[in-house]
């Protein structure tokens, strides 16, 4: 074995060491070990060239799968289904990659799709965003007061409804449909943990606000 060959073996052994004892990277450790073993088993360094390509790709795939598996475990624990879905898709797609650049491109494309889906999912936050409007409506429609203030409150409520309907139909809806042409307000999403946990009010209040939002905006 010449010195150059020995030096390369030293390098691949060092790469293996990087993952030893780190529970986040089991696939990477195995893939790096296989790459290192291939280098060690070569009689001459030139023999390694034929083996290096697929093994290097295996290392890249293993790293992506290790990373996404760790993310998948966390997102499942935190009940984040969209993020978990894409981590799962990335693990599956990585296994089919034909080259490192194919792997990179596939991950970039999936990351972009995830971004889109999360943006559209985030529109469920419209409900909590409108809580101030709904609270003002509660004030103007349930206030116990005599005239002329009662009529004034009713007028204010009507104006508020008109304004927010216009805002919803002329702004919120067309903007959301630029992201998803079929988008419509899906109140079921509000009850999913990732959205529900961001609304600091009990279920009874949220249920009431959904009814009001639907009714007053004509959704």
């Amino acid at each position, binding site marked *: 074995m010449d010195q150059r060959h020995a030096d390369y073996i030293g390098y691949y052994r060092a790469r293996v060491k990087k993952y030893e004892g780190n529970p986040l990277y089991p696939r990477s450790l195995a893939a790096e070990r296989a790459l290192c073993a291939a280098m060690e088993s070569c009689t001459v360094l030139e023999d390694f060239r034929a083996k290096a390509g697929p093994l290097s790709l295996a290392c890249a795939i293993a790293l992506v799968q290790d990373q996404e598996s760790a*993310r998948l475990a966390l997102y499942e624990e935190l009940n984040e289904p969209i993020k978990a879905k894409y981590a799962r898709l990335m693990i599956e797609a990585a296994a089919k990659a034909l080259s490192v650049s194919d792997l990179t491109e596939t991950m970039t494309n999936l990351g972009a799709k995830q971004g889109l889906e999360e943006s559209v999912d985030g529109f469920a936050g419209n409900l909590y965003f409108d809580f101030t409007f709904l609270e003002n409506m509660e004030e103007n429609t349930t206030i116990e007061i005599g005239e002329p203030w009662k009529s004034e409150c009713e007028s204010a409520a009507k104006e508020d409804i008109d304004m927010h309907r216009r805002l919803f139909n002329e702004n919120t809806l067309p903007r959301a449909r630029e992201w998803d042409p079929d988008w419509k307000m899906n109140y079921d999403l509000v009850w999913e943990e990732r959205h529900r946990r961001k609304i600091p009010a009990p279920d009874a209040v949220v249920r009431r606000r959904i009814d009001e939002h639907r009714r007053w905006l004509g959704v």
Partner: protein
Amino acid sequence: MNIDAGWGCEMAVDKDLVDSMLGPFRDMVKDIDSKGITNKDVDEMKAVMAKMNGYAASMDDMISFSTKLTTEGLFVAFSNAYSRVMSAAASSGTGGAEPEDASLLAQSLAAYEQSYNRLKDDPTMAHIVPPVKRAVEIAKSGVTYPVFLRQCEEEKIFERMKNGDQRPVLEFQLECAREMGDKLRSEMYSQELAAYDRLSAASPCGQADNLAFELARKRIEHEFEPMIAEWDSIIEQWEKLHWLVIDWLDAHCSFAPYDQRWVGMTPAITQYNIRRTKEKNPARLVVRERIFRDYHGLGWNDVWTHPTWIQEQAESRVWFADECIDLMKRVYPVCRPGSKPPSDCIAAEEAIHAAKKWRNPKNIARFGDEAGAGSGYRIRSFEEFVKARRKKR
């Protein structure tokens, strides 16, 4: 394919914004053209570029334009094609043959040296400079390419470059949250910093693994997210109650007809406005108290010992002077439909107004008033923070 499609003409969306958004992509096309590269990936890049320019020319709304580029995946399509072009160019540069170790080492040295020269004078990049500098030193030490790679692996230089030292950024966000008196975010960032230190201590390269820290950070932020939402909502709700009560008291004071809250086009309108506050606010208070209770199970009397109130007071963020708050507390029990504030409370509030002492002096000192600006939140730039941090060390 002509990359100028829709580029040279007048753009409908703001040209400066479009230029800043598409400029880097146009530069990449120019770079490829200057190298004389032509292939189907270059065609694809130019087709995507033409599409982006076409949208810029035909659309008149910047948000819609930006959304269009995102939803059609044009940024990603362009970047993918560009990566393929660059990757093919790199391979063809070696004539398809495996490059020699010496040339690989020379390329690595050139790349790290270029990065080092670009980063070394930028204080915000101080945390990434040491591993880059060390890579340059090893590459220049006369070792061969595989030895350079081994040493970089053994000294965890690639890991340190990949991870960067995130501590300065984490310290900075904690400093900002503390300066703003943001209790929960301060706690959250403290926990993130502690997690980072814990992971760094356990890491062979002395810096937390990027992935491990990303997971730890997401977990911490996930835990704090609902607490922060609740905290902000509680403050918003009690602030509304306080204004309803103080406005009601003030509407009964002699200064009301001259106060901007009520002054109308005619004295009659002004009187009508005052009457509205006097008669309506007690009824509005009933509703707002109900909402506060429905949301958070809290009432008027719970506010004064609640952590949100204590924190807002400690950070001088409560607008009202203590004397006004005392009056607010005294007036609250009678702020009911058909009632009016006690005359001594009205007199006391009038005296406060005559002396212009309705605002908390600590709030004025911090946030200023018409007489001048306050110190506000003393948040320095990240660059200044890093410089000071380096000096301290």
